[in-house]
């Protein structure tokens, strides 16, 4: 049996009364984009839900893409049969046994039937149908126990005039808000584990992101750049297109190092990065700066350091992974597919020239004094902005291989 439809449940946006229509439209646009390679499939919107009519298009690749659209809470493959009790019973049983087969635990599965009869020509009432199906399934499938209040398996059956619709599985969606529904933000992407996760969390919260990466080429390698591009490419699996601003930071970094206060170098660098990010944010109409900082992880991520880092800019700096445990961040990184790339061993600019004991409690007055003497900093920041390179991700592979494949 193959599914004929996919039922999509929209998530948090049901909370937002007035914006709902606009939000649903955004999800629909994203769903339609997923369906582009599958021209026979159509989308139908209903209250708080959406139906894809597959019409022969394959379920698996579409489901794979749906699971990455923000704003979708969950979705279910829906199977259809004619309005005849024996057929409904067989179909229900086969769906239940397939689902049971995927389970690894031996414990009994709590189960219930929810049946709705909309077609009054159908002989049984909803309650009767529910009983008939429940009894049949319990008789023929092993490992089930009825629990109508907290079922793990909810067999949903709807008898309409056009046919009977049955589903049992619910696939968890990416959740969150649809892309761009909460505006736009710049994300500082370092190449580590945390910042791609921060970017993804921002995207899930309905932000479109402009990625900013600072590189110290040739002190850091081309591979370090490629790694960041690879991370950005991976994030585009959750968005249509993302821009990556590559900012040449070498000159600024060498200049700050000349100031001679090695223990404050990281603080000075991060302040410079914030200033640059804010200017990029202004130019790109972004309302926030997002970082992958995590409280206490390294010297630059203590409260006093964060104060010093934040001070030069007035845009809100959001730090989605600030309070997460490292393992939680790693788990998320694995889930979104950035972990393997993040742990590739290439130096980024922050680990270059780093002193043995960076300040954990940088003194703002000292910093202000130092910055007063860094008279060329402003022109170097401007130069960095002028020379930055903007890549549109996903970066097309050097070729699409259609000649070879």
């Amino acid at each position, binding site marked *: 049996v193959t599914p004929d439809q996919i039922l999509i449940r929209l998530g948090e946006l049901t909370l937002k009364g007035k914006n709902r229509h606009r939000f649903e439209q955004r999800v629909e646009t994203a769903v339609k984009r997923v369906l582009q390679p599958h021209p026979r499939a159509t989308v139908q919107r209903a209250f708080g839900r959406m139906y894809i009519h597959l019409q022969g298009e394959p379920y698996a*690749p579409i489901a794979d893409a749906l699971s990455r659209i923000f704003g979708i809470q969950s979705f279910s493959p829906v199977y259809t049969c004619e309005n005849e009790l024996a057929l409904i019973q067989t179909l229900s049983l086969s769906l239940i046994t397939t689902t049971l087969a995927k389970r690894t635990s031996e414990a009994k599965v709590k189960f219930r039937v929810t049946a709705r009869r909309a077609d009054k020509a159908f002989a049984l009432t909803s309650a009767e149908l529910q009983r008939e199906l429940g009894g049949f399934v319990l008789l023929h499938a092993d*490992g089930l126990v009825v629990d109508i209040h907290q079922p793990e398996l909810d067999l949903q059956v709807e008898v309409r005039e056009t046919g009977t619709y049955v589903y049992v599985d619910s696939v968890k969606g990416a959740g969150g808000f649809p892309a761009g529904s909460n505006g736009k933000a710049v994300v500082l992407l370092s190449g580590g584990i945390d910042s791609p996760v921060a970017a993804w969390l921002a995207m899930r919260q309905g932000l479109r992101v402009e990625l900013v990466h600072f590189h110290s080429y040739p002190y850091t390698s081309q591979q370090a750049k490629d790694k960041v591009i690879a991370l950005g490419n991976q994030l585009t699996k959750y968005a249509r297109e993302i821009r990556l601003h590559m900012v040449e930071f070498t000159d600024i970094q060498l200049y700050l190092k000349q100031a001679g206060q090695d223990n404050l170098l990281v603080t000075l660098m991060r302040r410079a990065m914030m200033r640059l990010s804010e200017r990029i944010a202004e130019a790109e109409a972004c309302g926030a700066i997002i970082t992958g900082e995590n409280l206490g992880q390294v010297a630059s991520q203590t409260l006093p350091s964060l104060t010093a880092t934040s001070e030069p800019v007035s845009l809100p700096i959001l730090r989605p992974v600030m309070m997460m445990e490292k393992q939680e961040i790693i788990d998320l990184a694995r889930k979104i597919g950035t972990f393997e790339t993040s742990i*590739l061993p290439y130096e980024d600019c922050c680990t270059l020239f780093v002193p043995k004991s960076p300040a954990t409690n940088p003194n703002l007055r000292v910093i202000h004094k130092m910055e007063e003497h860094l008279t060329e900093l402003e022109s170097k920041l401007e130069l960095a902005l002028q020379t930055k390179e903007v890549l549109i991700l996903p970066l097309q592979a050097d070729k699409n291989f259609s000649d070879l*494949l």
Partner: protein
Amino acid sequence: MRHVLYFDHAATTPVYDEVVETVAVVMRDYFANPSSMHKLGQQAGKLVEAAREQVAGLFGVAAGEVVFTSSGTESNATAILGVARQFGATRGRHVVTTPVEHPSVLAQMDVLRAEGFEVTEVPVDANGRVNIADVAAAMRTETILVSVGWVASEVGAVQPVAEIGALLRAWPKALFHVDAVQAVGKLDVDMHAAGVDLLSASAHKFGGPRGAGLLLVRDGVALQALLAGGDQEHGRRAGTPNTAAIAGMAKALRLTLAERAAANSHVRALHTRLREQLAAADATHGLGLALTGSAGPVGSADLDAAHPGSAAGSPYIVHFTVPGLKAQVLLHALEQRDIFVSSRTACSSRDERPSPTLLAMGHSRESALSGIRISFHPSHTTADVDQLADTLVRVIQQLRKEASSQ
């Protein structure tokens, strides 16, 4: 030069010219290790992933469900041993298969028997097909795997895969492996629709290069890897990917499936023609030749839906026996006339014992020593088939005469 007639496409097929080109270009220009971090490695890696996407699309599965291997044999071993080692200790130690499987399946079953597993071989009928009721009867609560070939490689029997898949929905602990090496590019192979968990295929059976196979692993199915030592293929198959062969396989699959509908109807006609000519010649000349299987090739509806009720086999294989005439003798006599056929699967054809497949189908020992497999390619013409039938009849008559005069 005399016209050479190759009728052993079930053993291997000639490689598409376009695929030869792809393999050559990839070998030369994408030589870097696809797992390397540098640019050259990444380009090779991207090519492998593009090939994976293409293969996944053609099979109607997700890219993550495609594992590239080195051969159909490796795919079968990965599936069978992988399931046994993943679940043998916890779920049970019983496996179900059939006696007409390819040696690469049956040999894994021997490995499992040596490891203390019980293996049940479901009987087959005179057409080489299993009966769904017999499969059902073989199932036990401790069954962890059912392994059935979609098309039996020796006689071409098409097994009721979708029916078995439906049956196994009631056996949640048993995974379903299908060796589809002789089916891919010929039958409508939709693994998810048929309820299959693991599906093996091999590139060189559909115009691709040797050294490339694939195993489709349904999302959610865990397998212990056969080869350890690297996290290639998401840890499911260590070893540097064979970029050129993988790209060649993806291309060959695309080309084959594009031609499938036309190829099938052409080959069906060849199949019917050869069987009719052999049956007629046998009736006229008393050759003592027996066609294997009771009906003609599966029809177009059957091919597209892999119809479970059909008694006939794949149109790509015609199998017959000439009891009393050893297969090798006939094979070599045909070879002298530049006609190449096989006695059974290439992986077991040097074996001089009677064919286990034919014995399982109820043939006598004498008959099981005389099986000949003719396997077609869409490039064959009716003239080729006529020449084959004509030569076969003359050669058999001659060999029979020699045998009786001794």
